[in-house]
């Protein structure tokens, strides 16, 4: 069951002029959040901006005894609320409702896990990487960004023995181009018998391309979608995703309740 907490900002780590990691004291949420779940955050008091914003839980923060003490959010400044999250000061209180939504289904060894992240779509993969590491699952992070300076938090993944495959759109780090290029090469090279689970989060075009590749190579693919959300609890029907229904039609599902993690091959991408 979700809880709504007035979470104190423990720290705000700027990563660039647009990205930051906001650490929040929220033990109850940290204790129950599963990889892929999200929180609804009201970044400032008052009525403008009015609504909360959904954020993936980025990291589970632990105290010295190892108990869950808080969560962090990976934020990209794109509008009024994300600007407030970017500018948040330590000590400030932030309304934080969660954990919400359907989490990733975490694969077991001997299957491999391939995480495909684009930009701020890295957010749900730190907790997933932790879960995969704990299960001894061999894992790769395919991570694409605009430029080298926007490939963030790589050490979080290196520390969990995650293999990194990086691309940048300007070629300033890793391979020049989109992340789906090395993903496709890896899919082509792999043995069809070796089980692989693909996880994706990022821009819509990257998600569609990843889901289609996964289908073409017959790999299961869980995508974490991002939609404009009003409430996060199923009340407003804003955050819908078109999914194939049983009878060949299209059904709008609420990504807050049925997602944000959805089966890539069931989403109607066009």
């Amino acid at each position, binding site marked *: 069951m*979700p809880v709504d907490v007035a979470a104190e900002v423990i720290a705000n780590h700027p990563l660039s002029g647009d990205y930051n990691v906001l650490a929040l004291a929220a033990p109850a949420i940290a204790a129950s959040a599963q990889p892929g779940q999200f929180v609804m955050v009201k970044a400032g008091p008052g009525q403008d901006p009015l609504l909360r914003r959904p954020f993936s839980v980025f990291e589970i923060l632990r105290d010295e005894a190892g108990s869950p003490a808080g969560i962090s959010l990976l934020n990209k400044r794109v509008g009024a609320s994300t600007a407030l999250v970017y500018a948040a000061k330590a000590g400030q209180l932030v309304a934080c409702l969660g954990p919400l939504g359907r989490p990733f289904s975490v694969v077991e060894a001997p299957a491999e896990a391939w995480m495909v992240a684009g930009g701020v779509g890295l957010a749900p993969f730190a907790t997933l990487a932790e879960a995969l590491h704990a299960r001894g699952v061999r894992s790769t992070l395919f991570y694409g960004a605009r430029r080298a300076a926007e490939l963030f938090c790589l050490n979080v993944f290196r520390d969990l023995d995650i293999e990194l495959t990086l691309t940048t759109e300007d070629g300033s780090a890793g391979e020049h181009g989109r992340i789906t290029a090395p993903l496709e090469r890896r899919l082509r090279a792999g043995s069809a018998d070796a089980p692989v689970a693909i996880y994706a989060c990022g821009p819509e075009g990257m998600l569609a391309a990843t889901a289609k590749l996964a289908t073409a190579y017959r790999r299961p693919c869980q995508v974490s979608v991002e939609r404009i959300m*009003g409430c996060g*609890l199923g*009340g407003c*029907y*804003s*955050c819908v995703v078109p999914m194939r229904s049983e009878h060949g039609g299209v059904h*709008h599902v609420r990504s807050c*309740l049925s997602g944000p993690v959805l089966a890539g091959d069931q989403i109607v991408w066009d």
Partner: protein
Amino acid sequence: MDLSVQIGSLTLKNPLIAASGCFGYGVEYADIVDLASLGGVAVKGLFLAEREGHPAPRIVETPAGMLNAIGLQGIGVRRFVEEQLPELRARRATVIVNICGTTLEEYVEVARILSDAEGIAAIELNISCPNIKEGGMTFGCSLTGTSDVVSAVRKVTRLPIIPKLTPNVTDVASFARASEEAGADAVSLVNTFLAMVIDVESRRPRISNVVGGLSGPAIRPIAVRMVYECRQAVKIPIVGMGGIADARDALEFMIAGASAVQVGTANFVDPYIWPKLLEGITDYVERHQIARLSDLIGTVDIRNDAYERSGA
């Protein structure tokens, strides 16, 4: 303390109703809101059949408000009765079902099905949705359309009928009057204001339906004015809504003439708002030594001196 209010033959334990379209079918909130503690739960608008609604994006935020064009996605009245109503009854919710139709016959059929079901307290007639091509506001923007829907549904149900009025008309009070004359037990208002938001960089509308309905604190003063106007025009109870975000806002609507209030957008921001609203209302009633909350309804003081001070 007596916080109960009367909507026709229906007694609500308090005036707080979750607004249709903002609370799913109620069951989504059952684990975090004590549904029995609410005066009522107005569930999402139901047609006869299932509907998929509009593609995303369906909402966009505006200053102190939001614009939506969901397109009345819904499971249809039969599935509601089978799948959701039992849970609402088990939670002892006072269930108000918002019903829609693209034709007069559809309103009648949906009302008939609900009248045969157990555990429904009232029917709210959605004749005011701005986001669908047929039905909805096309009935609610015409006095004869309003009158026709209310009379037709009146013939097939004993449940209290509450037409939900659109503010997208010149004189909302005349629609309240038409509803009353056609046999409505109450009216609820306001639905959302037809509005538009454009992304300047791309020159694209920000929601897929191009236009949508504006709600939230931004519209509250207009909604209060409309409730006040309707209070002068009709004797039947009014359910007021439009941007209520705290107890004072709710009280403002009651003083303007509302017997009960609905809260919608604020529930998105704070789903735990209900006990806070109730506490705020209780505090007010105690502080002003009001015997019964219903004594507050329509008590706005518009003596001339107050009138002159306000500059009106």
